[in-house]
């Protein structure tokens, strides 16, 4: 018991707060990454119908702040395909 008494001053609420902040940051990100991977696949499929693209050259990123979410899509199209389109 005396060992526990040494730590008596350490309060539990700050630990709760810290654990929650770490956990929720992780959980929120994983919910979003599900959405991002679905979007990535479907966007790739649509583009692949018309031009040849490398699966690794499609980047989908989701950013969230207090008011808006921004979906950033970055697709690198090979030179040949873009000339064909033009």
């Amino acid at each position, binding site marked *: 018991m005396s060992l526990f008494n040494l730590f008596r001053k350490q*309060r*539990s*609420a*700050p630990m*709760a*707060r810290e654990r*929650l902040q770490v956990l*929720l940051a992780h959980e929120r990100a994983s*919910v979003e990454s599900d959405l991002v991977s679905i979007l990535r696949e479907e966007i790739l499929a649509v583009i692949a119908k018309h031009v040849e693209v490398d699966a690794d050259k499609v980047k989908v990123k989701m950013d969230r702040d*207090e008011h808006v979410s921004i979906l950033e899509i970055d697709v690198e199209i090979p030179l040949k395909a873009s000339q064909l389109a033009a």
Partner: protein
Amino acid sequence: MGKVIVVTSGKGGVGKTTSTAALGAALASRGEKVVVVDFDVGLRNLDLVMGAERRVVYDLVNVIQGDAKLPQALIRDKRLDTLFLLPASQTRDKDNLTAEGVELVIAELKRYFDWVICDSPAGIERGATLAMRHADMAVVVTNPEVSSVRDSDRIIGLLDSKTLKAERGERMEKHLLLTRYDAARAQRGDMLKVDDVLEILSIPLLGIIPESMDVLKASNIGAPVTLTDAKSAPAQAYFEAARRLAGEDLPVAIPGEKRGLFGKIFSRRAA
């Protein structure tokens, strides 16, 4: 057209039913027409907390299945003329609650009542998503405790994705109701503080309901706490929360902050 509110939390036992009853009675005591709807099919409890358990004849599922008309299932409160209850059924088959049926019932209730308050079941399953589906705004009931805060975060995510409002691209109005708050323990650092929970969940604060014996006493006798002892601390907090729901801009007093340690010392010196 009435406003539809869902009282939800994810976690069970944090005070959804108590809060539904207390807020409903508080709004009705202002003379507004209120119906509280129990969505907890299979484990109904709102009737018991409201003291109407022996007056239940028909329920939400009966109305959805066409076995009863809505007015037949509504129970008028014996203390307040403008307060009604639509009980849940005790049938075990939750599939009886269909999305179309719920939509029709809510649409009809909105025409007659100023406030339609939906008491959500715990969890994040179908019952909970049906309860929130048609809501105009949400009251997220949270205890200052890690598992409750985590579940509230999940529920906030669902409110922003699974509701009709969210699907239409509108913003779902969400309010935090912090229940079972013990100011002394928070002050000592043994309980999450109001600011901690607000910072983590980042939704506006509707009210803080202090931990109190009066809440249990009220459910023992089967009355919303706002009707049994309107002067008690939890009842006062619920009345204020109801006024904020109705759109009043009322600052939230954080319990215990005025009477902090320094406050005590200084007030004694000044005396």
